[in-house]
């Protein structure tokens, strides 16, 4: 009899401890990280650059990739949209939802590393795999895309530092890649 009461007491005590510990955490609590700016004003130009340079449908404009980039030059979020920016051709510009989807994919790749880079005011962007791949410091099927100090690099690193250099992103970074023959023939 005493043994039964002992177990009942232990279960009750345990339940009370559990209830107390759970009730001390707010229901809307999250584990936060330091993240770069996510507004359309600050991330939008970065998103446009990424869409143009990295988001073609055969590269990161694909839902099968870890880094997924959405936008009017590549993969669209809405089932009614097509990979076309021009309204005249039936397309439309990248939507706020697409910028957010790209942002979440990019920041979510390595959240703790991203937090470290952002809290360090973007001083060590090479800690991030996507920067190392774009700079050619790590194997990348798409090859070396950016050189430290060029407009593309400044676009990315200024955003990581919390102060997006919009003019570096557009139109300068958008001018890459440059094809000497075909681009010249259409100028």
């Amino acid at each position, binding site marked *: 009899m005493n043994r039964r009461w002992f177990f009942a007491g232990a279960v009750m005590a345990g339940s009370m401890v559990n209830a107390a510990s759970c009730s001390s955490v707010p229901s809307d609590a999250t584990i936060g990280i330091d993240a770069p700016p996510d507004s359309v004003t600050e991330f939008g130009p970065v998103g446009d650059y990424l869409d143009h340079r990295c988001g073609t449908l055969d590269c990161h404009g694909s839902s099968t990739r870890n880094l997924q980039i959405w936008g009017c030059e590549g*993969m669209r*979020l*809405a089932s009614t949209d097509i990979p076309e920016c021009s309204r005249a051709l039936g397309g439309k510009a990248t939507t706020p939802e697409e910028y957010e989807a790209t942002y979440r994919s990019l920041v979510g790749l390595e959240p703790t590393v991203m937090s470290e880079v952002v809290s360090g005011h973007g001083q060590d962007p090479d800690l991030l795999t996507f920067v190392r791949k774009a700079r050619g410091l790590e194997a990348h099927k798409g090859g070396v895309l950016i050189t430290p100090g060029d407009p593309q690099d400044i676009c990315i690193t200024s955003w990581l530092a919390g102060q997006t250099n919009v003019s570096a992103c557009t139109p300068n970074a958008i001018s890459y890649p440059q094809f000497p023959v*075909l681009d010249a023939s*259409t100028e």
Partner: protein
Amino acid sequence: MRALVAVLTASLLVACVDATHQEEVQALGGETPGVPRGPLHRPGQPCLICHGGLGPASHEFSVAGTVYAVRSQSAPATGAQVQIEDINGSVLTATTNAAGNFYVPVDTWQPTYPTQMQVSLGSLSQQMATHAGRNGSCAGCHTSPQGPTSPGAVYVALSASDLPEGGL
């Protein structure tokens, strides 16, 4: 002992099969009746699934695809010039056949990605709005119909009214 060797050999062979590639090949389906295997077969399909080096086709291509005469229509653009430029400025021009197909054998030219492309036929010309990052199959992205992940098939004329009198 022989049985053991046979089992081990068989298991090694199975392990070497690329199941994803096999599924991609299977998904293409069979040949169209009346069209023999060759330059005119399977227009609109992603050529490099079979011709990209993993088989089953024996001829390996670096870039290949199909060009249609008019946007969202099925008539091929025969004799169209497909100009492909890689990031180093190396340019190759291929010509489409009666099915609208063109192909570049790997021993002829291999681009360094990214690439840019333009198709032209007579006075009509379309330059690709974006670049290609890694895939030599036009139909890897350009599938019909248009949708969130496809700009539609490659074409030379936006509408039939753009075609010269009497068609192409």
